[in-house]
């Protein structure tokens, strides 16, 4: 019974909170009222059985408590009348469009730019993912009280900033949507490539981000970058099972067993990318997805269309210029035009302050140097990269490569100039 109620809560709570938030104009109060409804359900359902329409039950219960809430505090009559009307008008079949609007409004609020990134993430996972404070804390490797505080402060900030409970107008829509996509992809990324600690991945976070992205794609189907971010996540998630080797070590993209790639997710990703492409020129997420699609379409690493990837990185560098993009462009260029061409781009990045602590820069440089036969320099670069990464397993991998490139090898080295592609490409 408890498991069933928990499942119902995860499915229904975002809609309940969203509906109450619209009426109460306050996300914190809305969540409290929704929680009260859950408590009532936990008391009554074991006794009376789970209702036929549990979502409607919860919504009604929450709305009744909203009325009680207003009876206890001072408020303008208009607000009270609004709620009363809301409850009276309530019937078993809420208008699906209204439910969708409420949910979209809640997503925009939870990802409001007035909140810090951390606050947005915590609030989104809480209100839209139905994750408990503890679950969020474990997912992000922070103490539970920290998360609880973040969520509390986030709600307070929204109230104090008098954030309007309307869907963003045309003028601010682009920025507000960008903020939402940033949150969703951040959650995904956190699950996909753990930056600290022992573990490489947390697939549950990837799952949650994917789900939120898909929900958003249904709510705003005319936004190409929404499909872009979903495509990117589906395609990257398709590689999750291939990223860990037998001994738990990380396996880079070009070394991965492609039979382990999830072809269901690849197809979904390609379809989402197609939707993005139909809607206009590709934005940064869609471009990254298009790059991931190039890898996904190649049955083996050797079949990778590097020229296309290089062209896509050129496009990405124009609309989203960044040292990291430049780094990836260098790899694609090296695969298309040879290691010297790639090294030229990399060498221009060595003084780049943004990449000062980015282990992938020396890692890539090491790859290219190795291919050019400059093995001693390569070994030094791999060692530098190993010292920079905070992920234990990745460090082990890089240290092994430093040793393999060592001029005094302990085991046979591959010959220089061998046409093996650089192995840094984001796995």
């Amino acid at each position, binding site marked *: 019974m408890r*498991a069933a109620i928990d*499942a119902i809560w995860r*499915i229904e709570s975002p809609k309940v909170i969203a509906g109450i938030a619209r009426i109460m104009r306050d996300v914190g109060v809305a969540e409290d009222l929704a929680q009260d409804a859950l408590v009532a359900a936990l008391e009554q359902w074991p006794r009376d059985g789970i209702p036929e329409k549990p979502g409607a039950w919860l919504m009604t219960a929450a709305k009744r408590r909203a009325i009680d809430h207003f009876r206890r505090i001072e408020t303008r009559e208009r607000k009270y009348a609004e709620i009363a009307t809301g409850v009276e008008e309530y019937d078993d079949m809420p208008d699906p469009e209204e439910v969708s609007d409420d949910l979209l409004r809640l997503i925009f609020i939870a990802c409001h730019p007035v909140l810090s990134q951390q606050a947005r993430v915590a609030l989104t996972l809480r209100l839209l993912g139905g994750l408990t404070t503890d679950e969020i804390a474990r997912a992000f490797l922070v103490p539970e009280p920290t998360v609880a505080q973040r969520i509390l402060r986030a709600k307070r900030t929204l109230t104090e900033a008098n954030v309007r409970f309307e869907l963003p107008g045309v003028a601010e829509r682009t920025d507000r949507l960008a903020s939402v996509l940033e949150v969703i992809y951040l959650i995904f990324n956190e699950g996909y490539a753990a930056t600290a600690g022992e573990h490489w991945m947390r*697939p*549950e976070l990837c799952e949650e981000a994917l789900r939120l992205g898909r929900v958003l794609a249904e709510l705003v189907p005319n936004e190409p970058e929404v499909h872009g971010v979903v495509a990117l996540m589906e395609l990257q998630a398709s590689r999750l099972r291939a990223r860990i080797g037998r001994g738990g070590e990380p396996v880079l993209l070009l070394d991965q*067993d492609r*039979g382990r790639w999830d072809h269901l997710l690849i197809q979904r990703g390609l379809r989402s990318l197609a939707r993005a492409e139909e809607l206009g020129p590709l934005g940064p997420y869609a471009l990254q997805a298009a790059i991931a699609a190039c890898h996904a379409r190649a049955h083996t690493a050797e079949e990778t269309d590097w020229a296309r990837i290089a062209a896509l990185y050129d496009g990405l560098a124009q609309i989203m210029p960044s040292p990291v993009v430049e780094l990836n462009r260098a790899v694609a260029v090296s695969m298309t035009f040879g290691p010297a061409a790639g090294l030229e781009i990399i060498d221009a990045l060595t003084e780049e302050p943004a990449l000062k602590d980015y282990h992938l820069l020396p890692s890539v440089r090491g790859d290219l140097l190795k291919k050019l036969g400059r093995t001693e320099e390569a070994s030094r670069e791999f060692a530098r990269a190993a010292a920079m990464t905070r992920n234990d397993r990745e460090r082990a991998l890089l240290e092994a490569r430093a040793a393999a490139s060592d001029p005094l090898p302990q085991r046979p080295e591959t010959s220089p100039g061998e046409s093996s592609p650089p192995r840094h490409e984001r796995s």
Partner: protein
Amino acid sequence: MARFVALVKATPESEAGALPSTEILEEMTRYNEELVKAGVMLAGEGLHPSSKGARINYSGPTSRTITDGPFAEAKELVAGFWILQARDLAEALEWLKRAPFQEGEVEIRQIFEDDDFGDALTPELRETEQRLREQAARNR
């Protein structure tokens, strides 16, 4: 990631190739839309009746016996499936409760993730599986 297959058991009607009523088709469309809108639908298909299918029986490394449909015992046959993403079985069940069926049965099974295999997958077996996957990837 937790994924589930929901196997929709056949009925004598589905085996007879009877098309569902417009009303039921509409309800099913709406239901599928709900699954998509919730971000939990990964795949879903209906299957032709077993009269269009076949069975293949394995005995030892080379002996294969093929039997053409139809097959008896509708309720042991599959008429359709969904692949759903859900946090756990309880959530998958909650979704399937909402399917617009008025008869019949759905069986829900969790899809194996690699970590699930645990000790059963010995290093040798893993290697074999790896080779098979590589082969499958090449053959595509």
